[in-house]
């Protein structure tokens, strides 16, 4: 696939694979990130993979744009998206969510907006697998792809000043989970008790790019039980290497 290597200032280079959000492109980004890591190029200090590009930050005392782009050029020319059977073999993370009620105050708004019942919204939202394209915006925040347009809904007109960590929301045709308490304008349809970011854990983010997230409806009572386990440090994230 074609790619471009562009300067992002005097201390970073950006390798761009196209300008679209699609799994194949995203696979190339992560394949390149692994290749750059494996090559341990002098002066590379940090890699930030996103939907369709890889940012390579470097120490300009140790290398320069020209030298680094030569290295990246040959690595990017060699990366291939994983073979098809590998592409579907993703780690699947099962994320329990209590939908509606106090934990999901906007479930009714999303249902009404789309002419659906609340249960239909839950069925559609929890019926799909969502690819994790990247983390960004806030610590541990996963950018998820693949939400059904039938449950799309505009953001709140006035963002809430404080959303509890774990809130599961919808904004336009995206869905996401707020890892920590933060302000936010997404329509909140439920909440997960799972902590998505823990600065003492390694890695600190619970959901990593390349995996698939599935939301599993739980009752408020189950939510409470799971939350107690999470708070006691006894909860293990449920994941499996599942062939989608």
């Amino acid at each position: 696939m074609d790619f471009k290597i562009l300067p992002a200032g005097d201390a970073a280079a950006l390798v761009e694979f196209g300008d679209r959000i699609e799994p194949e492109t995203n696979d190339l980004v992560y394949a390149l990130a692994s290749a750059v890591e494996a090559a341990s190029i002098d002066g590379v200090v940090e890699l930030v993979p996103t939907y369709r590009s890889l940012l390579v930050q470097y120490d300009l005392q140790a290398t320069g744009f020209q030298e680094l782009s030569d290295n990246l050029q040959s690595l990017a020319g060699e990366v291939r998206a994983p073979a098809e059977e590998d592409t579907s073999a993703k780690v699947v993370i099962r994320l329990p969510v209590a939908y509606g009620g106090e934990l999901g105050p906007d479930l009714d708004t999303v249902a009404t907006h789309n002419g659906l019942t609340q249960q239909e919204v839950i069925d559609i939202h929890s019926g799909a697998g969502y690819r994790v394209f990247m983390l960004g915006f806030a610590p541990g925040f996963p950018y998820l792809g693949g939400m059904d347009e039938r449950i799309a809904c505009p953001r709140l007109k006035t963002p809430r000043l404080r959303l509890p960590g774990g809130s599961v929301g919808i904004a336009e045709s995206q869905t996401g989970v707020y890892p920590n308490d933060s302000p936010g304008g997404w329509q909140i349809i439920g909440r997960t008790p799972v902590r998505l970011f823990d600065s003492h854990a390694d890695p600190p983010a619970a959901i990593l790019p390349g995996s698939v997230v599935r939301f599993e409806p739980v009752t408020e009572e189950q939510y409470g039980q799971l939350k107690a386990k999470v708070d006691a440090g006894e909860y293990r994230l449920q994941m499996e290497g599942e062939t989608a």
Partner: protein
Amino acid sequence: MSAGTAKVISPGALSLVQDAGRLGYQKFGVSLSGAMDTEALLLGNRLVGNSPDCAAVEITFGGAELEFSQETVIAVTGGDLDAKLDGTPVPAWESFRAPAGSSLVFGGPAGGMRAYVCAAGGIATEPVLGSRSTHAGSGLGGLDGGPLKAGDELPIGEPSDEPSALRIPNGLLPHRTSQLTLGVVPGPQQDAFTGDGVSVFYSSEYTVTDRSDRQGVRLDGPVIQAVGDRYDIVSDAVVFGSVQVPGDGKPIVLLADRQTTGGYAKIGVVASVSLPALAQAAPGTTARFERMTVQDAQAAARKRMSDLLETPLEDASPARAFSLNVSGQIHEIRLPNQPDPNTARTIQVDINGEIELVAVEAIGD
């Protein structure tokens, strides 16, 4: 001298523990944070004998007060916020001893926006993900993830060796101006803007607005037109200095506390050498952008970095007066008080117009 604490008597407008930033975790969505004026942090640490990336207290806009529990060698660098130690103005860009119980008070900005208090041994709060930097937005670093509060006690590390009183040579100091010219390396999304839009950006004067903070400097000025009015891009990573242009066409330069990714097209990235001045720019400061090739920006950054790291610092020891009795005539001479007043040395003394070399040695009290 021992490792004591710096107690926050008042945090003023905003005081934060910052080091060189939380490198290595942006792929998890963790912002870099770190000192806004990276040069002031580096030079402050050099002055007190720390490694260049040690943590310091970043004081924004003044109004803050710190009290040292033990005698501590400190330096105040960065913006001039009218710092006084027990009521006496503090020499900027110099290291000196703050006595036990002394209080460092910041008035208001007299040039620049952010001052750095570097202490020998460094601020020794618990690192989080490899850094002590505070990112208040995500509650990471510092003492408890947020700005400092009255009553907070910041531990100070053990200095590696006895720091001497030093001064940054004038040639290394920043020139404060209310009219900035900022180098910019074009891209990565310059193509998202019309030819006219790009010309407007490089030929217009922009003004720093008061809606600027550690996340970024928002500028006001002529609108930069995007092709087909499309300012949104597929979100990608941003860096310290990325110039993003949202739908209103007014540029925002992203700084230390920026989010890791952004969804607006970036017309260019401010050159590393221009960032410290921008970090100190008060609202109302004007800025013009000047195109630079990546090669030129790198050459300038390398030159600046080697100057910052390698230029010898000046001796700032207070001179001590002695009287010199030469054949019954008393002459006053002044000797620097560092590194050790008891060390023997040879000095030149002007005695009745004749320059004589005189060996001086302490002989005890």
